[in-house]
């Protein structure tokens, strides 16, 4: 049986939009594939372990986003883990943190540069509502709920996570998020993995390093999120 360590980063700061549920859904979906999981919460004050298989970052308000960035900059743990093949799913504020730069509290901050994207203030319009998209590279439909004011511009080496059919995504209503190897960024809440269990399975497959076929969840007697 494979064993996966899920690390939820700074949930007290980045846990204000339900994204903490992504960890629970990963653990839940893992059971269908006989993968054992642990969920570890690492707070702002704790050092980030390097031995995680899946790291999760969630959405937050500006001040919390800056604090999380500061803590992640204390060492190279996240970068090293990713170099070693760990998976990272970063949502909304978390997505901005792992880009080259973003704006918070009226100033520009350097991000962790794990994805070649740059986030800018979006201006007066806030991007709020349902998002529907398709990821060509992952061959997946994705949907979620977005609520952000920043726009994200993809750099030359960045690939969009998905193409948006409705909603704003990165702010241009064309693409949402970005992906590079096992690093995934998106604006979708929901939580995204609760609404897209196939995506959860894909992250699990990446974490254990072999493909997993999607197992339909027969334990729930209803179709969900198919609106």
């Amino acid at each position: 049986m494979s064993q996966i360590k899920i690390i939820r980063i700074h949930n007290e700061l980045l846990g204000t939009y339900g994204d903490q549920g992504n960890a629970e859904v990963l653990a839940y979906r893992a059971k269908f594939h006989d993968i054992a999981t642990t969920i570890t919460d690492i707070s702002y004050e704790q050092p980030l372990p390097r031995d995680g298989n899946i790291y999760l970052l969630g959405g937050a308000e500006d001040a919390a986003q800056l604090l999380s960035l500061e803590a992640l900059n204390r060492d190279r743990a996240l970068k090293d883990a990713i170099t070693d093949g760990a998976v990272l799913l970063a949502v909304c504020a978390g997505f901005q943190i792992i880009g080259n730069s973003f704006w918070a509290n009226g100033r520009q901050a350097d991000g962790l540069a794990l994805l070649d994207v740059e986030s800018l203030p979006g201006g007066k319009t806030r991007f709020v509502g349902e998002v529907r998209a398709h990821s060509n590279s992952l061959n997946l439909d994705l949907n979620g709920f977005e609520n952000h004011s920043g726009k994200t511009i993809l750099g030359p080496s960045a690939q969009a996570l998905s193409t948006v059919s409705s909603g704003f995504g990165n702010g241009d209503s064309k693409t949402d998020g970005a992906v590079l190897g096992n690093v995934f960024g998106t604006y979708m809440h929901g939580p995204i993995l609760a609404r897209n269990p196939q995506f959860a399975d894909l992250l699990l497959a990446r974490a254990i390093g072999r493909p997993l076929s999607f197992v339909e969840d027969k334990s729930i007697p209803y179709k969900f999120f198919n609106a």
Partner: protein
Amino acid sequence: MRLRLSLIIARLAGFLSQKILRRSGETIPGKILLTLYPGALHSLSRNRTLLLVSGTNGKTSTTRALAQLVAQLGSTVSNNSGSNLDRGSATTLIKPSDFVVLEVDELYLPRLIAQTNPQVVLLLNLSRDQLHRMHEVKKVAERWKVAVDAAPETLFIGDIDDPFIAYALSGAKKSLKVSFGGRHHRDGAVCPSCGKYLHWSGANFACSCGLTNAHADLIREPGSAAYRNAELANIAGSALGAAEIEFDPKKLERVARKKLSGIDCSIRLVKNPASWSEALQSVQADKVLLILNAREVDGLDTSWLWDVSFESLRGKTIVICGERAVDIAYRLHVAGITNTLEKSMATALSHFSTRDKVEVLAAYTAYFQLVVA
């Protein structure tokens, strides 16, 4: 003159809307009045004592309690139906009285303070709610602080165990800061004042910038949200000289007893992580019905369900319905909490018998359909 004419038209419209359209008449007169006479809120609040109540949760019940308190001092009008935007305030102000107690939406509060120069403003709490509209809690707190700082004649009363309220009150000229202790704000990891990591020791926080709940003007015993709101209402009433009233916190909660299909139901309004958590802690019955909608006032998004612990329901008979029932059913299912999903209220109720006492937690729009309809 123009105000008097506008008032006559607005009153007439309200009368007609009630008689002919059978509407509640809580928003139409105010809406018409504000269209005809935009300065009406200011004009109609002159020479009267105004008290405003705002916060994420508990506005309606606290407003009702406060109106009951000040009614001891003189004639009082209040928008006790929860119609808390400008038009609801205007409708209430049309009626003559010595005292006006208004429940005010969080985003409308700053403007209403500026326009009505109230005697007392009661700030209950701030937490995540309708994020598609409020966007960020910190930004609501910032707007409140600006409004508080600009109203030196108003007495602001608030529960400073909530860091957002402590921050909003930090520059008030006249304030009564109340601390109850015994709880930790769920979104209190960041200092709203300076943005640093906020250090908590039990129920106490103290930031290096000076924001703390350690220096309260009044200290009260810890207790439920309904109890705290009753205390705050009494403190506000006392500030004007009203005799204290001993409120039963249970009766202040938005809980309605009603028979549904012959089943004895106590229906409680829940609308955001804080109110769900408060309600889930108090569930006594073994049979529970959860109704989730996600229309505008409910909040369009249900992501927050994953920030609420449903552990207190484990082992109970849980039936779920509502327009977004699937979201909550799946959230419980993933947590390993057995539940039954039903398409309609009728089929949901069929899981209970007339001998059962069922506790119903209902989203805002569902609550009104069940209780008011």
